[in-house]
């Protein structure tokens, strides 16, 4: 059984017990435990079920490479699935449940898949479930989905109870990894004066050296102390280097409160770091060995076994068999023995056995079997024994050795993820049987120079002394590359380990038959076995990417940290090619999964996308505004009074405005000031109309096209004085059109003297609309003349309106006598209030965007975004009057000369009047006879704006119809999606006051 040892456990504080819950059971651990170590201490070896076969699984590793021990953690707004037990620090009150089983971890119905495993090899689903056809959707897929997945999905209404933040950081050198290599690299770099950041994903500095031996006594503590004393060094623990991106962009994922939820503040902090140089001292990960039954709970990585003993005082078993192809695993045997536990056998696949460490183990009385292998592990939910055989053979059992844990080591693989994220290449190191960074092909930065270097074990320097020297060199190199003068540090004098070389063992035993291969796991979580990779190769899925995707090898939540190298070695072997020829799959960020919440950061809820508000926003809110998002603004769609529906409100607003007086907050309209000696010439190019001839004090409606000819914006242009124009744009268009103007000014006509300013937010603007609009303005007083003749239609004046500094434009979008009054934004609300008070006697009514839309439609005015959609040219809309014939050029003119734009077959704007007065549905198309070559019903037009007109008490619409203006009076059919056919007569688009008498009073 696994249990807590009486002594040991560097990380735990035995004086501080911690209580936690596992599947409802109360269990005890100590402060400093991980969830995995605490579970082991409570003899909970089985921690989960595998993805496909639902096999019982125990913890294999002690770090972030763990594929099996994943849990549902927490509740409600703090629930999180797939939490990795090996990196989850224990805290009081922690509560987890195991995953991927039903009804319970111990008895899981899904394990039926395991008994049928022979019928469910890699990719079996590509070959089956095809008949009958509907069964995939209704039977097979729901079944597969239900049995796949891992953790529970958070409740559908879950709102995250935690907060998150982003943080920017800039450093000359960033070191990822706080083991001895990282610490040394950081120190050497920092000695040069460079600004250094070092991060460690673990809560502790020192990495494996704390278990396997420091370069000298107290080395880590001394280095940490030195670094802490340097002003140019920033140190973060519990922070992982998640991803390396182009030009030295590095993502740091800091877990601030995962270990202590009682603390205040954000849970995760995402560091967006710009690094001059990056050193990855990310260590190495031990590889499992591929033997039958290597997934039975109790089979663990050798390094993990000694971690649990040394760091947590936890024994994974009383009798630990060790199996290895290298010297390092002997450390585990020695540690187990020293902890007072039994090592019944060390199985060393190498015929020649190990070196110095092997001698030491033998000296302690441990039995060592060279040239041997594990034929099979027995046990179900727990290891019972190992059956030994010759490594060179096919697995004939020589003897059975009782044990309750197996420590395995297939060698170590450098963690090259961060090196590879941005294009760093790897080289296969035959001697060490590993891929390590190829320093001649690093990821390149903006200058085409390498910006990542690896140090220590991550660079393939597994020996402690060599690793330190490598780290020192990396620190020096990085500092120099970042522009500092650096020199190496004085390092402890270390003798080279007297180890015998690793011998690659990709299959154990070497000649294992199909039965054994079907029980030899490569990818624990996704249930990929040696036989699956071999099947993939046999079927022609020869590329490593094909094999990965066909078998799902390495696609689990550990992203193949344990399985990838073993898998591609098997693949290479099967294909009879060298490992480097097979290559690796692509390493992608993040190194281990990071919370979506940390990526979203603070931008959620109210500040997801801040709302732009006009100065009158609060008034609207207090007066029943029914909001509509328009661009980043929010505008009142209408103002609801009492119990009325939005539709009723819109009708009321229109009637009141046409009868007397309405107010519209038009502040969101874009307001661009275009100024300079060449302003007129510039606007002549931008608008289809002639603007240079506009007289100061006059307004002109203008159209703007893209260079591709399509109508892109419209608005009223005002000539403020000889060399300044005020260009109104649509609400959504201000920034876009400003950018458009700047682009042409800066990149095409850069010698023209024009200056453009976006003054949209500097001015509040109110549409004062209706027969009583002049009266209400006159009531406010001031020195402006807004009389019929003083300010004629399409005129502009400025001056004092009451107390306000006003610009007044007499323009009419609703077809009534109306003015737009602009005042500095700071006076906006006061103006609105003043108009409200003064308008009381006229029954003043605020109206929203929908009433505005309906009123302009009644007048036959187009709306950008309704009549236009990016495929419409002004000529389609009958706006020839706004296209200057005199100008040689304007943006879009050449495009409009193309054959398809000149075609007489284009759909053109007309009014549409339903025969029965009903309202044509939004977006309806007019059908024509027959079908096209693709069997689609022919169409001859479509509705672009359609409303109920309260003024006319009937449906009105505008639409684009094939040769529409030539077909006045013709009735065409608009089928609705509900089966109704709307018959509409083609009419003139101006439904209300065609002579324009209302606006000219």
């Amino acid at each position, binding site marked *: 059984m696994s249990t807590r040892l009486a002594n040991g456990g560097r990380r735990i504080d035995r004086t501080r017990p911690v209580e936690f819950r596992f599947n409802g059971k109360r269990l005890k651990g100590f402060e400093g435990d991980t969830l995995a170590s605490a579970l082991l201490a409570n003899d909970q070896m089985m921690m989960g079920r595998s993805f496909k076969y639902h096999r019982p699984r125990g913890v294999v590793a002690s770090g972030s490479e763990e594929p099996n021990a994943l849990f549902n953690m927490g509740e409600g707004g703090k629930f999180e*699935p797939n939490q990795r037990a090996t990196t989850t620090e224990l805290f009081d009150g922690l509560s987890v449940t195991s995953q991927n089983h039903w009804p319970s971890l111990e008895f899981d119905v899904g394990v039926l898949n395991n008994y049928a495993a022979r*019928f469910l090899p890699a990719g079996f689903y590509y070959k089956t479930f095809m008949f009958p056809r509907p069964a995939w959707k209704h039977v097979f897929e729901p079944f597969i989905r239900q049995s796949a997945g891992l953790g529970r999905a958070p409740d559908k209404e879950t709102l995250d109870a935690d907060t998150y933040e982003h943080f920017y950081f800039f450093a000359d050198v960033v070191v990822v990894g706080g083991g001895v290599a990282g610490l040394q690299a950081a120190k050497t770099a920092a000695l040069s004066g460079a600004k250094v950041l070092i991060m460690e994903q673990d809560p502790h500095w020192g990495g494996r050296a704390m278990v396997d031996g420091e370069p000298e006594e107290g080395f880590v503590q001394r280095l940490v102390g030195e670094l802490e004393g340097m002003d140019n060094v920033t140190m973060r623990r519990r922070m992982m280097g998640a991803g390396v991106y182009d030009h030295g962009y590095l993502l740091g994922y800091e877990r601030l409160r995962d270990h202590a939820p009682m603390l205040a503040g954000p849970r995760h902090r995402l560091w967006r770091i710009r690094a001059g140089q990056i050193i990855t001292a990310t260590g190495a990960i031990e590889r499992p060995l591929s033997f039958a039954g290597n997934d039975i709970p109790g089979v663990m990585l050798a390094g993990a076994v000694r971690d649990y003993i040394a760091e947590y005082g936890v024994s994974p078993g009383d009798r630990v068999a060790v199996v290895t192809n290298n010297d390092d695993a002997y450390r585990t045997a020695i540690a187990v023995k020293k902890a007072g536990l039994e090592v019944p056998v060390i199985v060393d696949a190498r015929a020649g056995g190990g070196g110095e460490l092997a001698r030491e183990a033998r000296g302690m009385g441990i039995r060592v079997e060279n040239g041997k292998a594990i034929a099979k592990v027995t046990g179900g939910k727990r290891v019972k024994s190992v059956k030994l055989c010759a490594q060179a053979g096919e697995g004939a059992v020589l003897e059975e050795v009782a044990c309750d844990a197996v420590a395995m080591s297939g060698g170590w693989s450098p963690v090259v993820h961060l090196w590879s994220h941005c294009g760093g290449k790897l080289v296969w190191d035959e001697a060490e049987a590993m891929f390590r960074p190829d320093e001649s092909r690093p990821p390149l930065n903006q200058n085409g120079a390498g910006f990542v270097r690896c140090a220590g074990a991550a660079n393939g320097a597994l020996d402690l002394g060599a690793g330190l020297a490598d780290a020192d060199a990396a620190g020096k190199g990085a500092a120099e590359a970042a522009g500092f003068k650096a020199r190496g540090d004085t390092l402890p004098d270390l003798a080279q380990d007297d180890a015998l070389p690793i011998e690659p063992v990709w299959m154990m035993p070497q000649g294992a038959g199909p039965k054994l291969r079907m029980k030899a796991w490569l990818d624990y979580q996704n249930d990929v076995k040696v036989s699956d990779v071999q099947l993939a190769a046999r079927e022609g899925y020869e590329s490593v990417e094909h094999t990965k995707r066909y078998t799902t090898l390495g696609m689990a939540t550990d992203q193949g940290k344990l399985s990838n190298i073993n898998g591609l070695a098997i693949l290479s072997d099967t294909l009879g090619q060298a490992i480097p020829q097979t290559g690796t799959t692509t390493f992608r960020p993040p190194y281990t999964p990071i919370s979506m919440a940390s990526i979203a950061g603070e931008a959620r809820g109210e500040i997801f996308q801040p709302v732009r508000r006009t100065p009158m926003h609060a008034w609207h809110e207090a007066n029943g505004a029914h909001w509509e998002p328009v661009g980043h603004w929010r505008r009142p769609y209408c103002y609801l009074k009492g119990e009325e529906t939005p539709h009723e409100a819109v009708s009321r607003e229109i009637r009141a405005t046409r009868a007397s007086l309405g107010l519209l907050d038009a502040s969101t309209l874009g307001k661009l000031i275009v100024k300079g000696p060449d302003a007129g010439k510039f606007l002549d190019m931008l608008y289809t109309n002639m603007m240079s001839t506009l007289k100061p004090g006059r307004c002109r409606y203008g159209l703007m096209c893209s260079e591709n000819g399509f109508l892109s914006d419209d608005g009223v242009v005002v000539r403020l004085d000889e060399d300044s124009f005020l260009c109104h744009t649509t609400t959504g268009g201000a920034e876009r059109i400003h950018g458009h103007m700047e682009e042409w000014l800066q990149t095409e006509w850069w010698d023209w003297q024009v200056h453009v300013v976006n003054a949209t937010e500097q001015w509040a603007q109110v549409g004062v609309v209706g027969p009583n609009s002049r009266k209400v303005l006159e009531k406010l007083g001031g020195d402006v003349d807004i009389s019929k003749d003083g300010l004629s239609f399409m005129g502009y004046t400025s001056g004092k309106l009451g107390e306000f500094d006003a610009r007044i434009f007499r323009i009419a979008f609703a077809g009534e006598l109306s003015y737009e009054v602009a005042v500095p934004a700071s006076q906006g609300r006061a103006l609105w209030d003043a108009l409200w008070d003064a308008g009381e006697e006229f029954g003043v009514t605020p109206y929203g965007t929908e009433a505005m839309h309906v009123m302009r439609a009644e007048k036959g005015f187009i709306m950008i975004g309704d009549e236009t959609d990016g495929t419409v040219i002004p000529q389609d809309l009958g706006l020839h009057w706004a296209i200057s014939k005199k100008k040689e050029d304007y943006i879009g003119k050449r495009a409009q000369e193309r054959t398809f734009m000149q075609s007489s077959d284009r759909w053109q704007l007309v009014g549409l009047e339903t025969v029965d007065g009903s309202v044509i549905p939004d*977006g309806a198309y007019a059908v024509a006879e027959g079908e096209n*070559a693709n069997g689609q019903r022919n169409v001859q037009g479509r509705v672009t704006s359609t409303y109920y007109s309260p003024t006319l008490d009937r449906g009105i619409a505008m639409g684009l119809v094939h040769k529409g203006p030539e077909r006045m009076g013709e009735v065409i059919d608009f089928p609705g999606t509900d089966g109704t056919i709307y018959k509409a007569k083609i009419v003139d688009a101006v439904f209300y006051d065609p002579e324009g008498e209302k606006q000219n009073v």
Partner: protein
Amino acid sequence: MRRYSAFAVAREAARYHTGWERAWRSPEPKKKYDVIIVGAGGHGLATAFYLGKNHGITNVAVLEKGWLGGGNTGRNTTIIRSNYLQDPSAALYEKARSLYETMSQDLNYNVMFSPRGVIMLAQTEHEVRGYKRTAHANALQGVQTEFIGPERVKQLVPIINLEGPRYPVLGGLWQARAGTARHDAVAWGYARACSDMGMDIIQQCEVTGVRSEGGKVTGVDTTRGAIDCDKLGMVVAGNSGPLAEMAGFRLPIESVALQALVSEPIKPCMDVVVMANTVHGYMSQSDKGEMVIGGGTDGYNNYTQRGAFHHIEETVRALVETFPMVSRLKMLRQWGGIVDVTGDRSPIIGKTPLGNCFINAGWGTGGFKTIPGGGWATAELIAKGEPGPLAAEFGMERFIEGRFIDESVAAGVAH
């Protein structure tokens, strides 16, 4: 070709699956083919398949510089839908969708087409009108879609937040017969079927030059030697620009990065595909349980198959806003692909300035969903030398005439 079935699997189980044959052959290139297709992605393989199946042309080689299905076919978010606005697009995408429905049976390879339905959320009045328009257009195009209200959206997507503080969900365009498929399987299934027809799929074979005589293509130079052909199909997505340059013409195409990501797998919580164009993000749940997430393209020419992280941030923000529970999940993996985007963001299927050389390119973010339709139309084009009705509007000449196929009218986001 040995048929795949549950019985075959059972039979093989008895002998530890040692009897399975290769899904596709790995032949040496011949000296000459009737047709060479460059690019063994989904569209290239589908083109070859329909050349054989519909037109009886089987002396075909499909050349691939890497591994088949290794480009955008194997790195997209697998959404299949045909709720397009413009007639030519709707015809092509609906043809593709309908072919997906029977693809597993047609290819005897389970591509796991899952007609689970796609919703495109309407979150502004403008989007409501746009999607209602699409629904009307689709009804006349023979594409089954409907505009649904917020209650129905919530019913279909229980994890959605209807009353987002920023953009309330006002409804959505629902295509019940849209869905997803297993992307790799589509390439593999076509490859197996092509190989079975006697076609040669030649991987690790990069085209280095296009040879021509008298304005007509005669063959290609490759890293595995020169190969002659009567007709050439260029179906290489993001690499179209460089290949066209070899053939001596330019394209109205730019190649940019498009990124995607997946969460860790969780038990089923979302049965349909949801696209939220106002906030720029979309999400579905794979059969494995991962939430598959995508957004818009990066904004500059790029051949690295990597993107910038701030786009990932934008997409995740959008999805956390739309589906708040996503906040408690973790990102497992992010990746990028190179998409070829044309001047009107619609694809090109047509003739090129070089005789007997045809192109299928410019799918931008819509390539996967059209694989069978694009292949069908391109095969017809190559076989007959002239486009059929499906491809008729997609020729390059539309850029000179100003006759665009603009889908951004309805929804301007990647998918």
